[in-house]
Each structure stands twice: as C-alpha cells, then as structure tokens.
C-alpha cells in the first residue's frame, strides 16, 4: 500500500524547477538515458505526478545513479526538464535526511 501525497508537486517547487507536471510520459528520456534501466527517469516523474512521495523516498538511493548528463532534458519534447527534476528530488531527499 502506497500513501499518496496530493500536494507533492507543490512541495517539490521549493527544491527546483516546476516542470514535472507538464511531462506526458512519452518515454523519450528513458530511451536516451545512459543508465538504460527500469524506466529511469520517467518512472520517477510519474511518481511525482501521482503524489507517490513515499515511494520515491523509499528508493531514493537510485536518484544518485543519475549522471546529470542532461541528455534527457535536451531531447524532451515537452521541455519538462527531467534532469533538473531528478536534481530537485535529490535536494528534497537530502533535506528529508537532514531533518529526520
């Protein structure tokens, strides 16, 4: 059972770009991502959209696999800036760790 946090996207604005909600999950970012694993970063953006905050934090270590290479941002047809969204999630996770 995953708890849903409906205002999660709003909370994330404190940590960076406000672009996750404009993504339409086409998967271009997954196709170009050098990690080639488990639908990264599309899956994480989808979690933001549905408010699955806890799900992201449970598997937060995965965020640091991101190389911050920016290829997903370069190719995103919606200019949803997936690279910066991942960076925002890292900042949110670090703040959560340090406040816990």
């Amino acid at each position, binding site marked *: 059972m995953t708890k849903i946090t409906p205002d999660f996207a709003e909370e994330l604005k404190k*940590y960076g770009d406000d672009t996750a909600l404009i993504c339409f999950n086409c998967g271009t970012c997954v196709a170009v991502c*050098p*990690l080639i694993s488990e639908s990264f970063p599309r899956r994480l953006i989808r979690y933001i959209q549905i408010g699955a905050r806890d799900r992201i934090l449970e598997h*937060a*270590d995965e*965020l*640091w*696999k991101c*190389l*911050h*290479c*920016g*290829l997903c*941002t*370069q*190719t995103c047809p919606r200019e949803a800036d997936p690279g910066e969204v991942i*960076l925002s*999630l*890292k*900042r949110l*996770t*670090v703040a959560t*760790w*340090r406040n816990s």
Partner: protein
Amino acid sequence: MFTPRTIMELLADNVRKTRNPFGLNKAGLNSWWKDSPVNQDGETLLFTGLMYQLVPYIKAATRYLEKYEDTPAADYLRYGKFIPKPLVNLGLKGISSRDDRSEFNTILCNIVKILQSSGVSFGYHPELDEYSGVLLYDMGDQENFVEHARYVAEKLQAAGIRKLITVDPHTTYALKVLYPKYTGISFEVQTYFELTSLHSGDVSSEVTLHDPCFYGRYLALADVPHDLLSGLGVHCEPINTSGAFTTCCGGPAESISPRLAEEVGRRRVAELQATGRPIVAMCPICLAHLQKSGAQVEDLSSILVQFVA
C-alpha cells in the same frame, strides 16, 4: 552501489573543513604553477578550480571503491569523516600515482603556454584558485554548495578579480551559471580555448572529439574547440553523438557506483573508437574515465600546445 548519503556527507565534510572534496592539503594538491612562469597580478585570473589536480586522487580512490562495491566492507565508509584530515591527506598521497600527478600538472602548464602564445594577458594566484564546489551541487547538497560557492565568490570579489579563465567544463558551468544564480556574484568567465589564437603549423592530424556534457549541452560551447582545431588544420572526424547530443563518459558515477561508471564508459569508448581516429577530451573527468575504460585519449591542450611557436 555505495550509499549516496554516506558518500555525500563525506564529501561535504571534506569541503567544509578543507575546501576540497577529498580533504587534501591545498599546498600539496596545487603545486603545478611552480614549474610554470606566470604573473600573480591582474584582474583576469586563470582559475583551474583544482579539477585537473584532483584527478590523480580520484583515480586512486576509485581503485579502492571498485574493490569494495556491494561488499559488507562498503559500510565502513561512513566512518571516513571521523578520520583526521592529515591522515586522509597522507593516505591519498600515498596511493595516488606520481606519474598521474605529473601528467595532469603538465596539462595545466601546457594551457599556460597556449594562453601566453595567444597573447592573452592574465595572472595566476594559487591562493585564489579554489575548488568550485560543483560536485556538491550535482549531488543535491544545495546547502553546502551555496555556502562554499559564497566563500569562493566573495574571496575572488575581495581580491578585485573581474574576469576568470577556466580550464574544465564543470568549473566553467559553476562559475558562469551557478555562482550568479546562487551567490548573486558574477564574473566574466571564458574557457582557455575561447581565448586561444594560434597559427597553423606543420602539424597535420585527424582526431575524434569527445564533447563533455557541460560544454556540449549546458554551455553550448562544443563548436569552439572544433572550429579552433579545424582552423589549425586538425581534421575532427564527426560522430553522431556530439555537441548537444554528446553522451556521458560515465565518470560522474564513479563515487556512487564504479560498476555503473565502467558500463557507461565502455559504451562511450565504443562510439568514439568507431571512427578509428585518436580521441581527444577536454575535461579531466572525461579524460581519466575514458582512459580507464580502455581508450587512448589525449587532452585538447596536448594537441593545441603543438602549435605554440
């Protein structure tokens, strides 16, 4: 994979206490300039950001990380921040290679020769040359990044520095884009190759350029080294994954997962080697990681210095 929180807290602790991510003594880390005649004065400063100097230590540390990834011993890294910094310094110095330190110091000396031969007026002041903090930013440690960036920017500002010449993409991005945004302090920032003006000589060669992500995408500077080399008679064999669509060398993942970094690096090397031309990098992280992934790679400065009269 190592625990990101452990790695990040270790790096942040080192930056807070020593102003560099490895906890190294700066006098020992930054000694290349002693072999290079450079003025100390001037409002234009050569700013290395210590990245080339750090690479021999990154290579040494990664060799150990590779051994312990996903083993029970990896957990002991969390105690790293309790080791006194002089001991860390001694240990890293001991395991890093003298040849590596010499190779990366020579690159900086070559860059000085290139700038001087191009008629660029600049100074170098080792006291003002600091690590930019960019790794903290990439890891999401915004609080420590901003604190460190303010320290560096205010120090440069107090010394009357207005223009900076940079030598690597990560430091360039930090100073040009992140510092104005997060510290409110701006400098005029240019890479050394934007200022390079050399004459074509007898050297004729063909290369394949590996554009780093930060020059290719974030700073949109990939055309500059390409055009510079073409103007000197060096043919750059085109590849599809270049410029804004370049692909990562894998180096940035080394501290979190050497295994992942190796996999990404192997794929990039295959793309670059497909041309059959010598590979040229222009970022210390890319240079070291592509070499580690099995490629013969030279730094851009090693090509350019051949045209210095």
